[in-house]
């Protein structure tokens, strides 16, 4: 969480009961749906203010991210279109989409030797195995 964010004291109407230790807390009082949505909409407004979202649905970025961890391009035309989309000042992209595109375009065509993960079999044992300071001595 960035520390620059100033979170004004949000008057949350469904604040958890700050009871004494002796009183059993009723945490299963499910907050009123109306109040929940109000809070969410406040947050939505915050997000809109920052990034000016055009689509109300949050699903698309999420699904894209999950399914396309790294996009494929049909040909160079496709690739250039994506690149143009990223740099178009007339239609600025939401940060999520920008990030997705950036990941897929990259600066160079990766070769196995350059890809970070292509180190050969890790023979390094898991640190859970070493008894060091981990285990409790009884």
């Amino acid at each position, binding site marked *: *969480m*960035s520390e620059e964010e100033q*979170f004004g*004291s*949000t008057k*949350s109407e*469904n*604040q*958890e009961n*700050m009871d004494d230790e002796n009183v*059993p807390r*009723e*945490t*299963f009082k*499910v*907050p009123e749906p109306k109040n*929940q*949505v109000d*809070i*969410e*909409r*406040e*947050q*939505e407004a*915050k*997000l809109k203010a920052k990034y000016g*979202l055009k689509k109300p*649905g*949050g*699903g698309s970025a*999420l*699904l894209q*991210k*999950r*399914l396309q*961890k*790294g996009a*494929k391009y049909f040909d160079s035309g496709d690739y250039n279109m994506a690149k143009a989309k990223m740099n178009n000042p007339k239609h600025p992209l939401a940060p999520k989409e920008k990030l997705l595109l950036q990941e897929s375009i990259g600066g160079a*065509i*990766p070769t*196995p030797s350059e*890809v*970070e*993960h*292509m180190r050969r*079999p*890790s*023979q*390094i*044992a*898991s*640190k*859970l*195995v*070493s*008894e060091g*300071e*981990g285990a*409790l001595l*009884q």
Partner: protein
Amino acid sequence: MAGNGGEIQWCFSQVKGTIEEDITEADIISCVEFNNNGELLATGDKGGRVVIFQRDGKGNPQYSGARGEYNVYSTFQSHEPEFDYLKSLEIEEKINKIRWLKRSNPANFLLSTNDKTIKLWKVTERDKRPEGYNLKDDSGILRDPSSITTLRVPSFKPMELLIEASPRRIFANAHTYHINSISVNSDQETYLSADDLRINLWHLEVTNQSFNIVDIKPANMEELTEVITAAEFHPTECNLFVYSSSKGTIRLCDMREQALCDKHAKLFEEPEDPTNRSFFSEIISSISDVKFSHNGRYMVTRDYLSVKVWDLHMDSKPIETFQVHEFLRSKLCSLYENDCIFDKFECAWSGNDRHLMTGSYNNFFRMFDRDTKRDVTLEASRENTKPKTVLKPRKVCSGGKRKKEEISVDCLDFNRKILHSAWHPQENILAVAATNNLYLFSSKD
């Protein structure tokens, strides 16, 4: 030890792993799973390694520990990083899930999976070795034939216990998308694997074929609105399984009905007023985990802010809802910005199905008692490691006046999240993965 009439008093038991300033990515634990009798505990990490711990002191009267501790039994490299040359994509070696098979012979079997490949591992113990061969001596060096004057009969002699793990089956190339779940059927012969859009059924003996039983991929990918987030077989009914979605629904499917289970037998969905929706509604309703209760009558689901218990006989709404960290609702904007809103938390049942547990941020985890309706927040920390000391409940203050000992929402460490945890199948023992450390907690008595 399970099901004592009152509340459970949790105490620190053990912690595994090292304290590091800069955590090595490969050490981050990505799954935790007890085997069927709780004697073994397996963990998988981002580096593709599996570590199995075994409970010591079982039935040993001379054991001085209060109860069995878990110590390293075996460790092996399950998956390696791979590269899909066709798609120019790397395949991570991170172990997404581990599931144990029920033990039917001296060996132990487990299934471990990364994004694309599932492997069946056999873990065996060897405590004898053959000695007294004629043609070679005990170190393996060939004997000079002319020096052999008598024949001897080789026999088995005891040796230091050796644990060996070997991959027995590799189930590959059946998933286009990333595998998020595997679940062994109660028949112990088949299992399912689920990715974002499809669920496949495998037979443990067959690696070159698998049946596709659920396919939610639309003809036109532009029409895609939801993905599969988790799937599990019913613990006793071998024909039933459930899968959860990113839209907060759970579908129960019956394999007896038809080969392709695209049409659900039951759809579990909590009704929502369409006017009460926001940009975040769908994202936070995405179910990250679904687990059947041990008795098979209920299931629990975890979405971003809550844990819900469903009765399999009632699909209209959950029978219980517990708030995990409601105070985060007013922080959704920043949680979306730092991607935390997409974190996938797991949940677990206690052995007697009375309690639930799930993780949160700041190394906090939440325990819910379904009977008394009480809940508690505990922390996985090295601060209090005195044995037999009951963990102190933690409290988060969401605004207004902060009491002493409470922690403010803005001070929570969102990088220390408890996503993976497991509850011993019978006893009150918890295994909690806190990034690169594994904590074990047990109840006081």
